[in-house]
């Protein structure tokens, strides 16, 4: 699969004018993202997510390292033609109505807005803003603003969607609709790079995760691997002899289950434990890897010493 986003040893240091004070927003961050994936970019507040996204879009420039989007440097017109972007706290020209705002963005994309009425109506329908065509965007609620932001990001059928907190400001129903929309886009083969604090939602749609903390990348990989790694395995057996509890299963969590006994061991000890059970004449009914939730994984990573407060 083609690489869509590439960060190579990217460092961003903010420096105050006429001052020696420096702040490293990103330190040596490297990752790649292939097309067709949904990548969640996670981190606590101030971790460097928005800085990374701004550099990806060409708004900021890295102090060192290289960024490529569709093989082009950030800000390149060829790359930008294929990107739909939703900034954090999407801001707009308040005096425009939603159709006029979308028409303006169509013109900015170099397209003729004449005859785009159907496209605009469809998009407004997709984000549930039909019926508000004559209302100025300045009068919109926070959730409506987020929806129009999503509509403008989807405007030119982009191959890559960069979404900074796409569900922020939305009510639960709105969040569910956005997630549904993102799942649809994923099914259409779009590449989505999103940052969000609502981890259970991210877990539903992301297939890759990058976690950064204090400007450093602490974890990256496929969601499935990350959630399974470092986890535990549940072994269901018909019984567990007492002598095993004192020897091979020492330290394991053993508790009665509906059809026998549930033994919870570290994934690294699963084979050893199952073999011990078999050797003792027990019947191993099932072995299930216990998945972390993304939230557990995230908190584990950012709560480590040196992590975010």
């Amino acid at each position: 699969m083609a690489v869509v986003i590439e960060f190579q040893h990217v460092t961003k240091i903010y420096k105050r004018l006429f001052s020696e004070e420096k702040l490293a927003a990103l330190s040596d961050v490297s990752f790649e993202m292939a097309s067709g994936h949904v990548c969640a970019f996670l981190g606590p507040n101030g971790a460097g997510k928005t800085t990374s996204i701004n550099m990806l879009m060409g708004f900021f420039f890295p102090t060192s390292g290289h960024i490529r989007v569709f093989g082009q440097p950030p800000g390149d017109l060829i790359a930008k033609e294929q990107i739909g972007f939703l900034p954090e706290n999407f801001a707009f020209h308040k005096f425009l109505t939603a159709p006029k705002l979308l028409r303006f963005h169509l013109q900015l994309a170099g397209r003729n807005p004449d005859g785009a009425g159907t496209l605009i109506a469809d998009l407004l329908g997709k984000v549930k803003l039909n019926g508000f065509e004559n209302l100025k965007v300045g009068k919109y609620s926070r959730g409506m603003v987020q929806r129009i932001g999503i509509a403008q990001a989807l405007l030119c059928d982009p191959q890559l969607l960069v979404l900074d907190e796409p569900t922020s400001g939305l009510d639960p129903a709105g969040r569910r609709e956005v997630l549904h929309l993102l799942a649809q886009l994923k099914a259409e083969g779009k590449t989505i790079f999103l940052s969000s604090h609502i981890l259970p939602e991210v877990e539903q749609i992301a297939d890759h995760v990058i976690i950064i903390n204090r400007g450093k990348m602490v974890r990256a990989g496929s969601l499935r691997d990350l959630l399974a790694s470092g986890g535990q395995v549940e072994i269901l057996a018909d019984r567990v002899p007492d002598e095993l509890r004192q020897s091979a299963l020492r330290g394991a969590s053993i508790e009665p289950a509906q059809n026998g006994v549930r033994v919870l061991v570290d994934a690294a000890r699963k084979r050893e434990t199952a073999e011990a059970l078999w050797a003792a004449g027990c019947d191993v009914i099932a072995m299930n890897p216990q998945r972390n939730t993304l939230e557990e994984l995230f908190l584990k990573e950012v709560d480590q010493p040196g992590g975010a407060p």
Partner: protein
Amino acid sequence: MRKVRAIALNTFSGLVRNKIIILFCAACICILLLMLTSLLALRNMRGTQNAEMMQMAVLPLIATMMQFVSGFGSLLAAWSAADAVAGEMRSGTILAVLARPVRRWQFLLGKFLGVQLMMLVFVFLMLGLNYLLAWIGGATISTNPWVLIVYPMVRYMIYSALGILLVTVMHPILAFCIVLVMMIAAGLVAPGNPQTFMPDWLRTGLFYVLPSSNLLSETHFLTITRATLRAALWTDHATALVYGLDYALVCFLLAAWIFRSRSLSRD
């Protein structure tokens, strides 16, 4: 070109709704109305005074009023340009705009042209006001109208390009103050100004560096009566206008060069 046009029209729509600009214009209109009372008083005295004396009193008053409006236009051009760029950065709308396949210089050019569109409307209003004041004062303007349109437009181009240049590196209020100081300094160093506190070398240096509002002043050609009409060669016009356009172009190009490597953070 479609992108630049879209940004320009959007900027124009934003500027005519900008509360600070509306307030600015309202203040200008109030001052103008106050000045108008003197003109109306003079008009009412027409029957009792000598016609020649009346003309001598009315014409300087109209000239003062027009200088005020024209100077206000320069400040308006500088502020509008600075605010048009800084406002987008402050609100964050620039992020959605520049996420589109738009080059940074196209964004600045769109902003610049949007401001010029507003200033064109202002210039036409100023032209109308010119004729209105002359009519109230019982005088006739003999100047060719294109002079009264093109000269202020070129001057406003300079001040808006200056505003854009300064706002790419500083806060819009500071940029506006610097433009204001430049305007005053340009007036002080203009040939014919009798001020003496400035050494000659500084005066000459500033005259070359600052935009020459004297050279680009349409008041050279703003003549109320045929008796005072000054004939100007087309080469005089061309020199003055090319100078102004060149100044604006250099400021704009510098702004575009600085802006291309500027971080687009929300101020």
